[in-house]
Each structure stands twice: as C-alpha cells, then as structure tokens.
C-alpha cells in the first residue's frame, strides 16, 4: 500500500525538509498551522498579529529543525518556540503599549448587525464566542495567558508547561489558578 504524505510522520518530514524538500516542509507546516494560528490568535487578539506570530513561530521551527531529535512531540517543541516568540512579541508591545479596554478590544473582529443576517446562526455564535474569549484573554498578564493557553487549549501537562516556561510545576499550577480567578472576575464584569 502506497504511503501518502499525510501518513508520513513528523520525524520523516523533518528529515526530508532538512535535506531541502519543499514538499515535506509544506506538508509539515500545513499539518500544524491551524493549531499555531489559533494559538497566535488567542494570544494576540487580532488576525494580523496572529499571522505575524504564526510565521515567526514557523521560521523559528525551520531554523531549529536540526535540533529536534524526537525526544518529545513536535507540538511540544513547536509551543516551546511559540511561547518564546509570544513573550518576545509581548515585550515589543510593552515598549510601545497599546491601551485597550474590554469594550473596544477585538471589537473589529466581532460580527456586527449588518453582517448578522448573512451569517448562519451557529457560525455567528462561534465568532462571538471566540471574540469574547480573545477579549478576556487579552486582559490576563502574559505569563497567565500562556499558562492557560498551554493547559486548556494545548492540553500540555504541568510538567511540560514548567519546562517550557522554565518554572516549577507548582508555579505553573499557581499561575493557572490565578488566571482562572482573574477570568472569573472578568466574566462577571463583561456581558
């Protein structure tokens, strides 16, 4: 039975990409881009910055391909890079802070009255739900946002998170608890 590129493991694709195979690199990126893009979207809160962050993550992955030796899942490796790039981006933003509030933040991404008639109800609800999640996540400190991301959305273990963030597992748990408390208060104050 002939093996397709979809069946090919990450390790094989990485080896081929290291040998210069554009096809293998494309396949590898397409396999993980949705996960990375949505991570980026939740972290940045807007599609443009999310695209930038996603491309930075894959550029970082490409430059570090040879260092991946299969000691962990590629996704864990990928989110190690993603975590570092996200922190870098947040630091750059701190240099020139953008002041947002719960009311106007990510507002442009929420479907408005004119669009509503054209969108199926379910799709509209999903978009509104996503926009709300982005809004509240943006209110979390970066370190809490990343712990929530890696725990809730990427479903990593606290040990993995601890390793990625260079903290102890207990610190990761404490940050996660603090993030949930903050989210709770944000939800109570947000319609």
């Amino acid at each position: 039975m002939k093996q397709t590129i979809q069946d090919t493991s990450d390790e094989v694709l990485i080896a081929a990409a290291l040998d210069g195979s554009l096809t293998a690199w494309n396949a590898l990126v397409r396999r993980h881009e949705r996960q990375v893009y949505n991570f980026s979207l939740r972290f940045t809160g807007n599609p443009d910055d999310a695209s930038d962050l996603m491309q930075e993550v894959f550029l970082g992955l490409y430059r570090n391909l040879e260092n991946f030796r299969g000691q962990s899942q590629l996704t864990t490796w990928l989110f190690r890079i993603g975590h570092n790039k996200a922190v870098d981006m947040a630091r750059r933003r701190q240099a020139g802070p953008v002041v947002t509030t719960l009311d106007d933040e990510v507002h442009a991404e929420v479907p408005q009255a004119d669009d509503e008639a054209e969108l199926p109800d379910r799709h509209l609800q999903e978009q509104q739900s996503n926009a709300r999640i982005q809004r509240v996540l943006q209110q979390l400190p970066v370190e809490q946002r990343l712990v929530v991301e890696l725990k809730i959305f990427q479903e990593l273990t606290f040990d993995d998170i601890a390793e990625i963030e260079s903290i102890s597992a207990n610190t990761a748990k404490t940050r996660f608890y603090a993030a949930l408390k903050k989210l709770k208060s944000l939800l109570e104050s947000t319609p």
Partner: protein
Amino acid sequence: MSCDQTPHLIADYFDDHADAARRQQIDQHLLGCADCQQAVHELSPAAVMLAQWRDEPVPQWKPARIMQQDKGMASSPNSRHDEGGQRPAAESAGRARWLQWGPLAASLVMAVAVVFQVQINVNDQGWQLSFAGRDGATMQTQSLDNYLADFAEQQQLANQQMVEQALAQFGETSADSLVQLVQYIEQQREQDMRQMEAGFRQLLNRNYQTVNSVQQLASFVQYQEAQ
C-alpha cells in the same frame, strides 16, 4: 479562601492528565473542604467558556517563503552548527555587512559604467565589452578642445580686467606703491593657477583616458615646475 491546597487542587481538578490516584485524592478533599468546593463552583464557568473556542481558519500564506527566505541567508539548515539552534552572531553580522555593502557596490559599478561609457555588444560570436567607443573618444577630445579654448578666453579677459583695475587703483601712486602692484599681480596669478588646477582636476575626473587631457596635464606639470 482559607484552604492552602486550593491553588494546586484547582489546577489538578482541571487537568485532564491527572492520574486516577490524584483524581481520588481530589474527590476526597472536595468532600470535606467547603472552600475548595466553592472555588471549583466559581471557577468552572471560566473553564467552560474557554472550552467553547472553535478553531478559526488560517489566512492564506506561503510556508515555502520561510524556507526560501532562510535559504537566501544560508545554504541549508545543516550549514548551522550551533547547539542552541540560534544562528551564530558572526554569521548574522557577516550577512548584515553584505546587505549593507551590496547596494553601495552595485551603485559603484553603475557609476563606473556610466563614467567610462561601458558598452556591451552581444553578437553571434559572443559578447564584447568596450569602454567609450570611437565616437565617444572623438566627443571627449572635442569637448576638451572647447573647454581649453573657453578657459584661454576667460584667462585673457580676466588679465585684461586685472590690468584695468590695477591701473585704476595704483595709477596715481608713487614709486613705493609699485611694490603693492607687484604683490597684487602675484596674488592674481596664484588665483589663476588654482583655477587652472581645478579645471584639470575636473578634466581628470571626467575621463582619464583622453590622450589630449593627459598631454595638457603634462604641460601643466612642466609649467608648474618651471615656476
């Protein structure tokens, strides 16, 4: 909250990776701890809200660009040997230098090509590179002759004006003023020399290869040495 276990218990409560033994511990603790029960109750809506996220489609982009972009900087990922996965600083600095000097070098080549009127002729027998063809040399010679004629005319006119001004200024003075007249004329001659020198420098910049300009330059040097 008064239970000191709440932060870790809540974290493990929402952790799908918690093993069966830890789950049992959590359940037992919750049965006897009102604070942790309340925390679970209050924080669950936040976790539920986050779980409602639906992945959004990725905008169009070209992953190949990353590979091509990076290949433009290095031949392949295997060409890097640093353990940390970071590009060596020296390599980055070297690339930056090339990027800095590249446009300057290209501008220099273009400037040389324009100044020396580089011509590239391609025919069946290959290509030929030439510097200012016959027409170009003729044009340069004619241009030089015109320039020298203009210069001589300007010199003659300037000398005439200078003598008129000197006569007007010193014509009615005593013999002692003749010394001042001589000094004045010498100053004017020095100015003329500087002007002529600047003219030849301009000619040199225009075209080193025009034979006439070299001959004029030689005459100028001889004239200067004679002084």
